[in-house]
């Protein structure tokens, strides 16, 4: 008989900055824990939260977004020991932190690297700037449990998008722990939403959702062609993301390009 019984965590979803249970009341067992098994309606709530949060995040200055993402790295570092228990270990946690810092430094450089000023034949100042596409749905790979979900979420956030992510089905605890780091990192509520549950059950709803602008199907369960077909309903941008990579083009995959013709005259 222990002197004191530890208080165990209930593993819940992360939607709109809050930690609700699945509206369905369902859970599934993963890594020895009962984890929320999100439903179609949870997907709907998460997309709604992401859409509502999108203008604020997209409207922040790039410098500010960079600082918030850097703060996320700080929060992961502070919980490094816990994170190490939910993934392959300390090394994966450190790579995750460094990746977040790397992307934090990109927010205010994207427009310079990806944009352009265009020498049109006429009296116009013509320029092209990258802008976030909107709400991005992403499926985290099963492994690496922590680095994988961070690699898929953070490029979209760096570009100013709001994200709905489905955590690793086999190793969801790292994703839930990440939600707790996000909740304390100044990332506005709703900008990053994390669902746990069955990927194959949730992905089709995300792919067909008319208010999702892009979907990353890189970690789909062999049903990527079906998801791509469903994505055509509102001409979604379909991305095949990798589990472990970092580049500004990963960010660019979730960006639109806007070209402005501004008059020049006296």
């Amino acid at each position, binding site marked *: 008989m222990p002197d004191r019984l530890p208080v165990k965590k209930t593993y819940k979803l992360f939607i709109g900055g809050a930690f609700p249970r699945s509206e369905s009341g369902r859970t599934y067992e993963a890594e020895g824990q009962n984890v929320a098994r999100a439903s179609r309606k949870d997907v709907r709530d998460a997309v709604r939260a992401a859409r509502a949060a999108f203008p604020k995040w997209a409207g922040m200055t790039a410098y500010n977004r960079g600082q918030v993402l850097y703060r996320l790295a700080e929060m992961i570092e502070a919980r490094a020991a816990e994170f190490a228990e939910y993934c392959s270990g300390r090394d994966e946690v450190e790579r995750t932190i460094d990746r977040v810092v790397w992307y934090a430094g990109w927010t205010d450089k994207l427009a310079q690297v990806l944009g352009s000023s265009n020498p049109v034949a006429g009296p116009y100042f013509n320029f092209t700037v990258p802008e976030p596409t909107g709400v991005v749905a992403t499926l985290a790979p099963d492994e690496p449990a922590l680095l994988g979900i961070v690699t898929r979420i953070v490029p979209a956030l760096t570009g100013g998008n709001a994200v709905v992510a489905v955590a690793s089905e086999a190793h969801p605890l790292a994703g839930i722990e990440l939600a707790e780091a996000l909740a304390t990192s100044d990332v506005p509520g709703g900008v990053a939403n994390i669902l746990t549950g069955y990927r194959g059950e949730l992905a089709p709803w995300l792919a067909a959702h008319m208010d999702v602008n892009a979907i990353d199907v890189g970690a789909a369960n062999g049903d990527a062609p079906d998801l*791509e077909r469903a994505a055509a309903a509102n001409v979604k941008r379909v991305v095949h993301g990798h589990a472990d990579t970092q580049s500004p083009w990963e960010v660019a995959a979730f960006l639109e390009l806007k070209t*402005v013709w501004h008059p020049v005259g006296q």
Partner: protein
Amino acid sequence: MTELEHRQDRAPVPKDWTYAPAPEARDIVRLEEQYGHFVGGEWLEPTETYTTISPASEEPLAQVGQATEAEVARAVQAAREAFGNGWSDVSPAERAKYLFRIARILQERSREFAVLESLNGGKPIKESRDVDLPLAAAHFFYYAGWADKLEYAFPNRRPRPIGVAGQIIPWNFPLLMLAWKIAPALAAGNTVVLKPAETTPLSALLFCDVLRQAELPAGVVNIVTGDGRTGAAIVKAEGIDKVAFTGSTEVGKAIQREVAGTGKKLTLELGGKAANIIFDDAALDQAVEGIVNGIYFNQGHVCCAGSRLLVQESIYEPVVEKLKRRLGTLRVGDPLDKNSDVGAINSKQQLEKIQELVAAGEEEGAEIYQPPCRLPEKGYWFVPTVFTNVAQSYRIAQEEIFGPVLSILTFRTPEEAVEKANNTPYGLSAGVWTEKGSRILWMAERLRAGVIWANTYNRFDPTSPFGGYKESGFGREGGRHGLAAYLQFEDGVHA
């Protein structure tokens, strides 16, 4: 009385403003009776044909091929062979020179192409002569220069061509859309199979003669004609690595479904329902010209047409009055007449679609205005039309009409203008008219569209990326960004 006043006094006073006909000569264009498919540098006898006409007179112009799956397969095969044996080995600098040659030949033969474009498509000669042709040539010239500079466009990414591009283009700017597709594809080192629109195949077929003159290696560009069945065969063909489509959102979605899971790369330039937003401080006469150019240019057959006019409430009356007056001076008629401002509707099918949506607008309660206008008896015509009293929910405010039909709505604040402008599944373009530079940029930041024109509209340039947000498609055409659609990269990301 000064000498000048004397002379003015004696000058005949025009009694009315009717114009004498000023038709452009047609004899510069020599049409064949029948055209085949241009495959592997040779003309392939078509198995099936149809008649292509002039929409202004319904006069038959030529027989053209309706390419079957087998004919498409031969074209894809020719493109594959050209890509594998030779074209990808041509040095980038030499590739550039072929494209420069094409640009120059288009300039040299521009009148011939302009006349053919107006004849087969119905657009006024002054537009095909002053817009389509110069821009098509400029596009080839611009991308020619990129062919041997790709490493500078995409540093650290080792850009490589994708392979064979299947390209399907619309009937509103037949040759210009061909240039938008073929120029970047070849600059990037790909070979192509292109299908012009069913109703406007002739300028693409004449373009094959430009390729002959430019001595482009056989099979690098293959052109097959036909309707949507031919397009579907291109999309499905196994030897195609990349699909580029410009056309309706409906067909674009079908193509996106079709290529799902195949690994084929895809770019889509689809429909639009653009807002043209006029603030009360705008230079009104200039804005009215911009409204007219925004929606009546090319009979409104423009995916980025400014089909929803958003006028600030305080200037609603003068804008509508000036616009109606201006509409009365638009000359609708023979596309080959140099005085024509508005030409023929491209096809019977399109005319029926416009008529149906206009009828829906009247039925839903909008107020229609059409200036007095005598239309030719033969051919497909539609009077430039304005709707007032339009609610955002009306079909004429939601659906792409692709015709000379403008819906006018009002707003009070910049925030309301942004909200109404963005209230559409499309996101291709928008216009902003104001004398305030800071407001232009404030609006530009908030409008969810790929191209924002300020104090101008429907302006294009090869250096300027063009393409949509949301259901208006993805990928860009023009500029450095337009090259990315035709390249693959070492990092494996398609962006």
